[in-house]
């Protein structure tokens, strides 16, 4: 917040007098995500985690290269692709060469194309796009480009891990797939059906449906169908209010099997699920906070909690993003030549503070890492979320998940 305000003032001033603002020593990282509007909570939490990671992992260790510090600047895109593109331009004009974004595949798709075009048209001010959470497989497949790096596992990889776990659970015979009616929701559903069929053809998909995104006020009718179908497990890619609404409604209407989710924790959701979600909500994610994997991780989390008592480290990949960027800059020996930094990132193997390894696959700039299935509970939770007594505890780990997953990416390198 502090930095946002200060740099905002500078940027506006430079805008008014029409001067360029590329003078600082710092390595600037532009964070373009919603900071106002309905999805502001996720965006603001992400910004806090990024600022903290930059501070804790880089700046407090003396920075990179010759003591250059990471400086995170927040830009509010209001979840709008249009605003994102405007803010991208503002960020580039401020001398920012690293763009971090995660919320919303629509925004990510708009940004990756805009950055690709920008870099082609303006070789002097090229930027890299570090995507920490937009999971649309297209970003590392048909829409891939040299400037985009994804530090999260994509939707298919997460589904691969999720179905691995489901396949091993013999009590699951019937699965219900439900999601939001848009590209990501459809991708999740398609992946679930095809992968379940491949791994456990005896599992019956008793329901597969899409509901309007962000428009459903009451999920009861959907829950009724799920309960009536006799499903043993539910798979959903829902996020935000749609996740909470669906989850609460399913449980309330008498379902007690596991609900496998992509985005079922943090941002107030863990607190809101509370007791009702215990033992029901399963989350597919990368990175473990419970049980604490390493001492380093515990120190990191404790420091974060001291700074943001109400915040969660619910996206460990953000710290990986910062760590890997710092490594790449060190390796390239420059922060200004983003092509060199990108080349350093390609194929990098990185030991995370969370006790696992991340490999940036050069073919499609997709991070390969462990994927975990976490359980929402209040037992044995060291680090709880949302100032509640609940948190997510690791239940199963898929090592270096989908390392060989195919990609259609035809990377064009400069």
């Amino acid at each position, binding site marked *: 917040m502090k930095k946002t305000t200060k740099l905002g003032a500078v940027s506006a001033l430079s805008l008014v007098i029409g001067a360029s603002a590329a003078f600082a020593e710092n390595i600037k990282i532009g964070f373009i995500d919603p900071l106002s509007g309905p999805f502001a909570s996720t965006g603001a939490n992400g910004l806090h985690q990024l600022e903290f990671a930059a501070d804790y992992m880089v700046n407090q260790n003396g920075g990179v290269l010759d003591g250059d510090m990471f400086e995170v600047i927040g830009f509010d895109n209001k979840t709008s692709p249009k605003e994102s593109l405007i803010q991208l331009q503002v960020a580039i004009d401020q001398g920012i060469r690293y763009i971090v974004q995660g919320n919303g595949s629509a925004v990510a798709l708009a940004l990756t194309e805009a950055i690709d075009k920008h870099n082609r048209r303006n070789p002097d001010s090229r930027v890299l796009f570090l995507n920490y959470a937009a999971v649309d497989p297209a970003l590392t497949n048909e829409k891939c480009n040299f400037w985009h790096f994804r530090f999260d596992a994509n939707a298919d990889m997460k589904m691969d891990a999720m179905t691995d776990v489901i396949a091993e659970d013999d009590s699951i015979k019937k699965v219900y797939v439900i999601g939001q009616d848009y590209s990501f929701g459809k991708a999740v559903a398609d992946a679930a059906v095809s992968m379940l069929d491949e791994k456990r053809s005896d599992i019956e998909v008793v329901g597969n449906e*899409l509901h309007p995104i*962000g428009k459903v006020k009451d999920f009861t*009718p959907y829950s009724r169908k799920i309960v*009536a179908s006799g499903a043993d497990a539910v798979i959903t890619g829902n996020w935000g209010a749609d996740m909470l609404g669906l989850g609460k409604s399913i449980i309330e209407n008498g379902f007690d099997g596991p609900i496998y989710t992509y985005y079922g924790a943090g*941002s107030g959701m863990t*607190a809101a699920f509370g007791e009702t979600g215990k033992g029901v909500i399963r989350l597919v994610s990368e990175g473990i906070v419970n049980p604490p994997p390493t001492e380093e991780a515990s120190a990191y989390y404790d420091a974060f909690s001291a700074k943001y008592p109400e915040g969660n480290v619910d996206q460990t990949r953000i710290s990986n993003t910062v760590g890997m960027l710092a490594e790449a800059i060190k390796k390239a020996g420059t922060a200004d030549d983003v092509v060199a930094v990108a080349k350093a990132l390609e194929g990098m193997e990185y030991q995370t503070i969370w006790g696992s390894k991340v490999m940036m696959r050069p073919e499609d700039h997709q991070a390969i890492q462990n994927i975990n299935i976490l359980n929402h509970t209040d037992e044995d939770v060291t680090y709880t979320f949302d100032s509640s007594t609940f948190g997510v505890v690791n239940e199963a780990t898929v090592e270096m998940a989908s390392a060989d997953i195919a990609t259609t990416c035809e990377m064009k390198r400069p």
Partner: protein
Amino acid sequence: MDLILVNLIDGLVTGLLLFMLSAGLTLIFSMMGVLNFAHASFYMLGAYFAYQISIALGFWMGLLIAPLIVGVLGAGVERYGLRRVHKYGHVPELIFTFGLALLIEELVQFIWGKNQMPYNVPDILNFTAFAISGAAIPAYKIFMIFVSVAIFIGLLFVLTKTRVGMIIQAALSYPRTVEALGHNVPLIFMGVFGVGTALAGVAGVIAGPVLGTFPGMAFVLGSIVFVTIVIGGLGSLWGALVASLLIGWITTFAKSYNIEMENILNGLGISTPENLDESIFRDLWSLTSPQIADILPYILMVLILIFRPAGLFGKRST
């Protein structure tokens, strides 16, 4: 089928909740001509206030006090805001409520932050009332039905049996005449606005625990409330009730049964194109009723406005 009965109950809950919002709005709209875009914001305020009160005094005090606060706030908005704008005409009034909705959302975020609030069903109601062939009906839903019906009966009683109600009914049809008879129309406006927003507050209090208490809850509700009162006919309480229930049931049933467009079209004698994936109408063919359930009320509204602009129960053209 048993599911029909379950859906009837679920649709009833949705419809009655909608009714609590639309009842106030239809009175406000038909009396004052104000398209109150901030109505859903008062619903949100109801939920947040109730959450805050429930932390200290429990759910029941929240149910009692929160709507009162919302109503007083609403009356204040009418007295110090809308009344001032009223003389400029209806478009400025509408813009005023628009701006107010924006401001309330921002204020809520300012005070309570951006996350969802852990506002939950009280323990005493947190059990399954009964189950119909495996589908659980939570006790809280029964409670919601009771509250809504009680409010409807109360409202009907006030409007038809009391002196104030008579004046309001007269003011609905002939505002100037009522003024000429020496009634204090501005005071009635303020009262109606206050009561209308308090009703929205009640809806927020009881809906918050099940539908979620978050800054976007007013936005998610959106314009469906306007759709309800237009379908029902402006100024008609019965119309609002019928339209609310209609919308509740239509959306519930559309979501509960996967009616596929392909079946409908085939039924109409149109055969599925061979290579569906390449057809430009492929999205139309793969349409299912749950996908469009929430836009059905809008289709219904447009059709009604084209063929019966007064709405189902309206006496005059909107």
